[in-house]
């Protein structure tokens, strides 16, 4: 081989090594295999399936599915027994020490663990605790390692303890678990992580995010137990990620993830009071209703608050003639601009080489995230002309929206 060929080889290896170590997604591959096998069988077995379906329906009418066991609450806490592969190790004591020392709310009392685990692939240690803070309020904490240092245990979430009677799943979605500081280096490939812990009896999870075009594990993933930890693209956030928990094939929970990690933008809910072609009027916490903040739905960006007074605010829609916002092409992060056109929206300043085509996703940076790449909001999709934008969020039947607030402001 010539020197020049060896040099090309070396450069290709350098480029390929940009990826760094990747988690091996055994679960995703298994799911795809099952789905593919199902599709291949589907054609030949269609007639048989129809016959089986008739029988199954008949059986289902007389047979009852095994109900999910109910775990009694432990006072204000979830009465779930501890689970995980690292129970009985020093990890629990380490987690308590980190929880007590990280925030001013410690030291904590009445502490008990729900999960003590060492994840072999993604984040290393993952611990979920409940306990009372210094004021006696019941709290729930989630601690994890980081993708770049799987020995460093960090407090990721510290929330009021969830309802001990109705809660089936505790979950978190965040892009800040990649590093100890929660800030991703500019040269990294950003990602978000979804963590979920199910109540005793949960046998498997599905998940889905509107921030992702590819099909995720919707509801038919394999039953792998009460714990879920997967990496998602960086646009995944608690409001656009749906968690599905199953008990022996029966869905026992379906809903958005509980929240993000410390430092993530907080989605403060608000109710839609009225709507016009260019605006909606919303009602919510006065602390979240501040002019300039973005308002979103699980599908993406709705608009921006232009005026607020007390518990009510006006939100200018993406399609309003006076609306405009800096935006990016999804994944490739090419800058452009979205402008309202009075009932529709258009794309401006499209880079000549951006290769923007119909159905491409267009996103915008959420200022409340303090990151240009994590938790971006989908503004819409490129329309058929290549210069028009189909907004991500429709306003018809819209009743609940979220104001995106900085973590620090929401915590005050």
């Amino acid at each position, binding site marked *: 081989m010539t020197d020049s060929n060896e040099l*090309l080889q070396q450069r290709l290896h350098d480029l390929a090594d*940009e*990826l760094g170590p990747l988690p*091996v*997604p055994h679960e995703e591959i298994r799911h*795809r295999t099952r789905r593919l096998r199902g599709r291949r069988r589907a054609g030949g077995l269609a007639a048989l399936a129809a016959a089986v379906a008739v029988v199954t329906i008949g059986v289902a009418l007389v047979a009852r599915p095994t109900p999910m066991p109910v775990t009694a609450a432990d006072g204000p806490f979830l009465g779930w027994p501890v689970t995980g592969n690292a129970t009985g190790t020093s990890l629990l004591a380490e987690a308590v020490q980190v929880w007590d020392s990280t925030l001013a709310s410690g030291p904590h009392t009445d502490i008990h663990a729900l999960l003590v685990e060492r994840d072999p692939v993604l984040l290393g240690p993952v611990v979920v605790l409940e306990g009372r803070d210094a004021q006696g309020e019941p709290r729930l904490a989630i601690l994890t390692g980081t993708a770049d240092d799987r020995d460093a245990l960090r407090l990721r979430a510290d929330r009021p303890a969830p309802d001990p009677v109705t809660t089936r799943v505790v979950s978190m979605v965040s892009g800040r678990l990649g590093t100890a500081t929660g800030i991703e280096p500019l040269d990294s490939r950003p990602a978000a992580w979804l963590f979920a812990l199910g109540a005793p009896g949960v046998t498997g999870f599905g998940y889905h995010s509107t921030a992702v075009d590819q099909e995720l594990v919707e509801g038919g993933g394999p039953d792998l137990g009460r714990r879920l930890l997967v990496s998602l693209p960086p646009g995944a956030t608690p409001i656009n990620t749906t968690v599905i928990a199953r008990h022996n094939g029966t869905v026992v929970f379906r809903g958005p993830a509980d929240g993000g990690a410390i430092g993530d933008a907080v989605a403060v809910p608000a109710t839609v009071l009225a709507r016009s072609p260019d605006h909606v009027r919303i009602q919510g916490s006065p602390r979240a209703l501040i002019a300039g903040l973005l308002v979103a739905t699980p599908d993406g960006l709705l608009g921006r608050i232009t005026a607020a007074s007390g518990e009510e605010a006006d939100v200018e829609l993406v399609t309003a003639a006076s609306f405009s916002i800096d935006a990016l092409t999804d*994944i490739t992060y090419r800058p452009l601009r979205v402008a309202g056109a009075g009932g529709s929206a258009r794309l401006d300043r499209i880079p000549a080489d951006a290769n923007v085509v119909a159905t491409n996703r267009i996103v915008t940076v959420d200022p409340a995230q303090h990151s240009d790449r994590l938790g971006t909001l989908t503004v819409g999709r490129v329309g058929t002309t290549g210069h028009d934008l189909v907004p991500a969020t429709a306003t018809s039947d819209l009743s609940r929206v979220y104001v995106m607030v900085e973590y620090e402001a929401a915590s005050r």
Partner: protein
Amino acid sequence: MDRDSELDFRDFVLVAYQRLTRTAYLLCGDRYEAEDLVQTALARAALAWHRLDAAPDAYVRKILVNVFRSSRSRRWRQEIPVQAVPDRGLADAASMMDDRDVLRRALAELPPRQRAAVVLRFYEDLSEQQAAAVLGCSVGTVKSLTSRGLQRLRRDLPAEKTHAQPAEVDR
């Protein structure tokens, strides 16, 4: 798949996943798409695992390249070859200085079969016969694809970055 086969397949995935994803990344230029391509290829391989011989790498690699080529045959992703790598604007000025970025862009300008031939020959280090088996074509076609691919790379990369000569591909 019985339990032994499942464990065999799992071991194969553990060993091969990083390399396959890197190959896919060179083919498509995007991390998430690369992972998607590899997962699709591995899912297809899993279905045929029981009838594969002791060296499944070639089979999986062939599926991967086919999945990649299929993805590029869809109209919405069809590439439009251009005469030169276009300017990327001020926002990317810093990354333009990065050798890897220059190479990534140059690769992206190659038609899928040329790109696959270059990656198989110079990243996977396959012989022309092996690359022909993966691409499902003759050895002569591999020579032609590689030669044209290298010519285009030489044209799109700055002069001092051009390394391989089309005449030198016979290894």
